[in-house]
């Protein structure tokens, strides 16, 4: 891997980030009742209409990093330089706190359930894909394949609601919401850990359902790889079945899906917006959802930028690590 290639990919990622930021900034400003308008009406209604214009504009600038008096391109330039140079995403209207602080508080929780969901969904995808390919056309294959098609036809939030109904309300195996049981002290003790996992389980399962869509593609790849000469030669060479299943079949079947898996990280992350609302799980997604409901533009813009950054990072990592899993891909040309 050459430094030139690295720089090129990094440059592309940064460019994409800028484009996203610009487009969403412009769209927000262009909306009727955009951020400054909304802010103005909020302040006016709170103060009963007795605020002078200069003070009002200063307050708006403080919160949104945008001065409504300035022309659009200057506003944009100020906003962008705040984001890039000072990592300042503005201040939330309603929570009255720095957007960055709010996001930093929430992000570990979203990461937790997303990683949990990805690990669950992808390992299940790979495992079921390989197993159904091994037993192609058997009863096991048709059952699992139809289940996965069914699961992927049901939106993940419906899966979430169904899970809550059966496992939390009817049976009480899991809590219906929240991220930790009340009255449990944080720390490395078993009750805390158990409560953490119990609260994350249902959101992770419903997000993981989204990630199992890979199983069918995996099945197709594995069936193709099973017909390859090197699998037959490996069997003739008397290699152990487990080695053939993992290093020969598994590895070669994952190759075409690797990038898709990495892009899937972004998909699972963004599904957090709905899932966290369904499970009342206070993570990034719920933060964004609340921002939408309360027209909290700085917060909305901030969470959107963070989601973009996560997706871009995942794709960037996928690009850089592809050579590690497939030596035939050469980068640098």
């Amino acid at each position, binding site marked *: 891997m050459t430094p030139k290639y690295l720089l090129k990919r990094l440059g592309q990622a940064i460019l994409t980030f800028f484009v996203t930021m610009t487009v969403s900034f412009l769209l927000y400003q262009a909306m009727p009742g955009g951020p400054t308008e909304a802010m103005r009406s909020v302040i006016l209604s709170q103060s009963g209409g007795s605020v002078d214009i200069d003070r009002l504009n200063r307050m708006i600038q403080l919160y949104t990093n945008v001065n409504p008096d300035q022309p659009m391109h200057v506003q944009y330039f100020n906003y962008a330089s705040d984001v890039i140079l000072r990592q300042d995403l503005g201040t939330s209207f309603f929570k009255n706190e720095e957007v960055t602080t709010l996001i930093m508080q929430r992000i570990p929780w979203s990461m937790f359930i997303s990683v949990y969901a990805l690990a669950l969904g992808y390992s299940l995808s790979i495992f079921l894909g390989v197993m159904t390919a091994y037993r192609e056309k058997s009863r096991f294959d048709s059952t699992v394949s139809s289940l996965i098609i069914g699961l992927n036809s049901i939106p993940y939030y419906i899966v979430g609601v169904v899970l809550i109904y059966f496992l939390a309300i009817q049976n009480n195996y899991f809590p219906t919401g929240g991220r930790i049981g009340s009255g449990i002290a944080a720390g490395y003790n078993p009750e805390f850990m158990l409560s953490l996992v119990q609260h994350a389980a249902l959101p992770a399962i419903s997000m993981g359902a989204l990630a199992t869509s890979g199983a069918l593609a995996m099945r197709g790849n594995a069936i193709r790889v099973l017909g*390859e*000469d*090197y699998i*037959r*030669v*490996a*069997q*003739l*060479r*008397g*290699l*152990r079945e487990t*080695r053939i299943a993992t*290093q*020969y079949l598994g*590895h*070669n079947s994952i*190759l075409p899906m690797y990038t898709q898996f990495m892009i899937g990280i972004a998909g699972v992350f963004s599904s957090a917006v709905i899932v966290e609302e369904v499970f009342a799980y206070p993570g990034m997604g719920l933060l964004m959802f609340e921002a939408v409901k309360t027209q909290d533009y700085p917060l909305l813009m901030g969470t959107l930028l963070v989601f973009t950054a996560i997706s871009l990072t995942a794709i960037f990592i996928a690009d850089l690590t592809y050579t590690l*899993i*497939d*030596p*035939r891909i050469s980068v640098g040309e």
Partner: protein
Amino acid sequence: MRTSNQNDSDPDQDVVFEVRDLEVTFGTNRGESRVVRNVDFDIYRNETLGMVGESGSGKSMTSSALMNAVVSPGETSGEVTYYPPDGGEPISVLDLDEEELRKFRWGEVAMVFQGAMSSFNPVKKVRGHFRETLEDHNRDVEAGLERAHQILGDLYLDPDRVLDSYPYELSGGMKQRALVALALILEPEVLVMDEPTAALDLLMQRSIVSLLKELKEEYELTIIFITHDLPLLTKLADRLVVMYAFDIVEVGSTEEILYDAAHPYTRSLLNATPDLNAPIEEMQSISGSKPDPVTNIPGCSYRPRCPMADESCAEAEPPMADRGDGHRTACFYHDDVSDEIPIPAMEAAEKGGESE
């Protein structure tokens, strides 16, 4: 044990494989497809046995059955007995359980087949292929890799360069030779080569063939060489097995088959062999088309295409007639064949040889 005269097909020869009543069948929606029918033959230790026949005559299936490696859903039945060297217990290959079979494969019988280009795992270095083979057969890995170096050197490859390469970094000929080296890594008794040269150019073919001769001497191998390239086999094989329609029609030493073929199919096959020295009008293709594995032809299976066929050929299947010196053929009229179907090229060559 080495035989002093390899052309002498003595029935008391040291047998390494004994195949009896071998049948391979596949169920299809048109009915049962029998792709190997009632095959009997022996393979002698340290010989090179050539198998010829047209595409789909059952050559590859027969050789796969030696390792009980017929692809599913194929069913193999009959007896395949392997005699280990130094008088060990005979092994009935078709009765081995999964773990025993895994150990038997590659350890006793290794196979190099047509698709050498795609016989390596594309994401694993060549060294990894050698290493995992040694590991899964519980061999000493370091000593084995030493050996790999030596074999690759014998095959005129640069051992370190090849071992440190991914398969895609090697040329077709290099991959082919690396696969031969991989086949020899566990010091097998028998090496089955299923059209190992089909995808290579003529020069590469000849160099692999001469390498095989050297390897056979050096590693005391028994080689089974499958091809439809008859001229290639005549340079390599001690004995030939001719297959037609899923069964063996003629067996004998290479000389016998070449100069005294006693089955109409073998003679037509020799006539159909391209030879730059022979004028084009003397080259003859075999008329008719090859038989279908689902249909059963009563009597002799070559009858529909045979110029000598008569009613008796339709009534009964000709048994293997012994013509002496281990030369056997499945034809009622094996004594008359040489008059009925002359081989002009061969006669010309003989005349030429006499006049010189």
